[in-house]
């Protein structure tokens, strides 16, 4: 299975039945049938929303860099780290 750092040409996609919801100001990603719960900051939530299987890591990073030009230099590294975290949690797949 390729990873964010190994295969930049692959596209991350959310696995089925994971939900991102807000509760009292916190963003949480969870699967109702599993016990693990991830806490997201707004940027991580944005990256998660972009994991639709139609953008590469580079594509996601470029989109965020355009949206947040002041953070352009660190965006790629941040996106890679977040995708790595998603992958470790088992909530995305690479296509």
């Amino acid at each position: 299975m390729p990873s964010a750092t190994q295969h930049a040409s692959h596209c991350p996609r959310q696995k089925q039945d994971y939900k991102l919801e807000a509760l009292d100001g916190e963003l949480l990603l969870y699967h109702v049938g599993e016990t693990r719960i991830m806490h997201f900051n707004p940027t991580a939530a944005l990256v998660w929303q972009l994991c639709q299987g139609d953008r590469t890591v580079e594509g996601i990073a470029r989109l965020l860099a355009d949206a947040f030009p002041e953070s352009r230099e660190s965006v790629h590294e941040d996106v890679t780290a977040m995708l790595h975290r998603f992958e470790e949690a088992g909530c995305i797949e690479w296509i």
Partner: protein
Amino acid sequence: MIPELLALAARAVLRPEQQDRLRLAADSFSEWDALPAMAEQHGIAPLLYTHLAAAGIPVPATTMLALKGLALRHRSANAIRFAELQRILTALHAAQIPVLLLKGAALAHVVYPDPALRPMRDIDLLIHPDVAVEAQSTLASLGYKVPPAYPGKQLIDHHHLPPCVRVVDGLSVCIELHHRPLYAERPSPASAFDALYADARPVTVGTVGALTPPLEALLWQTYRHGLACPVLHEPFCLKDVADTYSLLDAYHDVLDWPGLRTRRPRLMAALRMLHHLAPLSPAVAPHVAPSSRPPHGVGVSFAGCPTLSWPAQRAAGKSVARILRDSLLPSDWWLGIYSGQSSRSARLYLRGIRHPAHMLYWTWRFIYESMAQHPYRTRHTTAKG
């Protein structure tokens, strides 16, 4: 030992003075990192999160975040379950199959201000034994996987059909169709169902009307199936305390107290014991008349065999002597709840004679069920509605 902070949170609604006591308990509490797991194990994570937030208690951020996550997941899971329950009730009504909600499905709607606060693992429905097959067929028509009837030996506690399961949005929704009322006094399942149905209480699940057993029956079933759950099945769980206290708090003015005292002395004795863990509300306590002298070992629940397996306890580092002591000499407090005896002399008899004999019985039953490959045993050890 059950932390006071957890025990005090085990009720649906906290009065101001109960919130104050929760704050005091939080002041002296230190195991914050372990709290979310403990709350989840006891089935009260959403309640604890709600009460801590409402009382404005300063809690370490990581603990609060974990509790929040658990509350959210249970809310989402219950939303799926109750949507399914509405579908099922609608279909059963259309097929003219009378049904009563049991256990968590009933309590979540009868005693909790928000059904999301009551974690569940399955949905228990009581049906008349004569229509059990039709009810199963109805579930099958809704997409539930209905296992074949158990072909083998006569089961000891076979009070429900094999669970029917359907996966919805990643959640495995499990339905147990009970055809024999739990702990009913009438010997015939059919007449026991009719008696409960005749006195049933209306409740609304989403937009669908449903029925539950009368309050006194719900209270008794919660005690027998939860607090006095056979040692073989599940450990003591604060979820059952929360169900009991919430029902008492919400309906103390309409409950048949004389009837409970006469017909359910075990329940009343257990309430007297529980009062020493988390005080009964001022409106409830006079009906129960708890003693001022606490029993030995308040908050120390049963932690021996067969509730916890011998290998698991050994793996956890328990010595053989400790396992034997925990199995044969449980706390007075737990014994009083489990057996429904609040007097000291009765508990001495329980400790010296009855409990060891009881343990022998359950050891035999554990072996019997293991050898008979009881088809529901796996579920019993992992799920309690």
